[in-house]
């Protein structure tokens, strides 16, 4: 069954869209990532114009994240306080990120900038996470049943002022790191059009020292607002949100998120981390290959964006 998308002005298969939404939603429910870094390439692959893929993908991410957060809230696995602090940083970061994105678009090199950012951040973070979680997994297998508790490791981060109690995470740390982490993630979200979960989740685990159990829900909570903000900005500035496309992606996504959350709860923390690390690395390698190998079509046609 084909559906004509009014803003994208292309006709696509309904089941294909539901499927893409479902897969991305599943990953978001399981790992606490928004899924934006997957949804944009998938939509581009089926022929949706880039601007619309980014903006409508953001819209879908909001829905999956809400679905995922509600699932996590049932298990009391969301730290709202931390979420709010991250959120404040996130909105500020997103605002400046969108500005830089607009500047890059004017230069005509936004694709390259986005690709390089993806490869750099995904590669770095994926690599670090992979190493850490592989070590943790091996340690837990050798040491027996009890896994090593990481939550009371004190780093330089814990020496900063303006401390606040984050009961759900079991932390008493300064608000500055969460604000900074939120801002960095928001900035990258504004540039890459993603929720930033793939950076937020490792940052929360390794920089802030939050337990993995709380990280997923809190990350989703922050993503809701940052991607919601991004959606509005795209809708108002460039009219690139296609509600019909969003509706189908969302339908698939929210169901996928629920299933993903259930399966994620059954995995051990180390297993989740290593799977996410692998996923992130695979995407980073794919984008790196795209940059290094000669593309099949050297020329690209884009409509002129009127100021």
């Amino acid at each position, binding site marked *: *069954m*084909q*559906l*004509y998308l*009014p*803003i994208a*002005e*292309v*006709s696509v298969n309904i089941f294909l869209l539901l499927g893409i939404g479902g897969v991305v939603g599943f990953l978001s429910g399981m790992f606490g990532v928004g899924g934006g870094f997957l949804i944009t390439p998938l939509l581009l692959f089926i*022929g949706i114009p880039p601007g619309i893929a980014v903006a409508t993908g953001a*819209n*879908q991410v*909001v*829905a*999956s*994240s*809400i*679905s995922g*957060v*509600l*699932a996590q809230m*049932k298990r009391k696995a969301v730290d709202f306080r931390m979420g709010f602090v991250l959120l404040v940083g996130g909105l500020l970061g997103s605002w400046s990120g969108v500005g830089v994105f607009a500047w890059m678009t004017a230069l*005509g*090199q936004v*694709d*390259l900038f986005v690709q390089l950012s993806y490869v750099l951040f995904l590669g770095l973070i994926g690599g670090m996470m992979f190493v850490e979680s592989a070590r943790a997994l091996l340690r837990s297998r050798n040491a027996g049943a009890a896994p090593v508790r990481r939550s009371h490791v004190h780093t330089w981060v814990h020496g900063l002022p303006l401390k606040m109690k984050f009961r759900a995470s079991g932390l008493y740390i300064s608000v500055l790191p969460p604000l900074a982490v939120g801002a960095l993630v928001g900035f990258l979200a504004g540039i890459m059009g993603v929720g930033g979960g793939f950076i937020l989740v490792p940052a929360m685990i390794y920089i802030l020292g939050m337990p993995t159990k709380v990280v997923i829900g809190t990350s989703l909570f922050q993503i809701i607002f940052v991607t*919601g903000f991004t*959606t*509005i900005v*795209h*809708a*108002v500035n460039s*009219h690139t*949100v*296609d*509600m*019909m496309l*969003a*509706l189908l992606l*969302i*339908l698939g996504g*929210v*169901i996928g*998120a*629920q299933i993903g959350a259930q399966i994620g709860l059954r995995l051990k923390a180390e297993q989740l981390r290593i799977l996410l690390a692998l996923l992130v690395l695979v995407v980073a390698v794919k984008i790196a290959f795209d*940059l*290094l*190998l*000669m*593309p099949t*079509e*050297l*020329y*690209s*046609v*884009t*409509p*002129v964006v009127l100021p």
Partner: protein
Amino acid sequence: MIRAAALLFALLAAAAPLAASETIVAGLSQNRVSITANYDGSEILIYGAVRRAEPAPEGPPLEVIVTVEGPSTPLVIRRKEKTLGIWLNRDEVTIDAAPSFYAVATTGPLSRVLSSTEDLRHRITLDHAIRAVGIAAEAADSPEFVTALKRIRLADDRYRLAEGAVYLVEQTLFRADIVLPANLTEGDYRVRMFLTRSGRVIDSQERVINVRKEGVERFLYLTAHKQPLLYGIASLILAAVAGWAASAGFRMLRR
């Protein structure tokens, strides 16, 4: 005096065949395409007849060309080059206007049906439909960019050349079936029909097909452009409601 009379006579003699020339009487199966939610392309039948006062002249046969042209937009074409190990966009060329859709259908091979001077005068084939003034200054091999545009859009079925797709019966009746693709842009699509003999255009006709979004498609498109903030907020509410509904639904299923 005699020279003037001779000139006048020559003019009259030349005018005589013009008065008895062939003209097109044409029609379209539909002059309005409504893009609804499940739009999957449409087929337009372009038909017509040749009206002539005298029987068809001897010699080369009559040929028919039909073109369908979608709305034109400015485009930027970029080319990737390997720089410092990675492939990135380097040169770019701005096209003033290129049609979003362009189909040319003829009764036979284009070289036989149309001469290049007539093509230039009436701007029939694709090369003349793409307006790219001054691109020579933008890049060293700018014609390559236009060739790439044509190649990309030909592969995408946005540009089409269908030689032999127009059926001409007994030099009088013609029909052409043009399939409009599913990925259609809204606008006025110009249909032109040409009668040619020995590569020269004898007569031409023009019709317009209105392609418009209808119903919910139109509503969403207009709202997105006229009330973007409301539209954005509505998208978010949709997302929120869907997220909550899925969560509630699963909760009920699990019980």
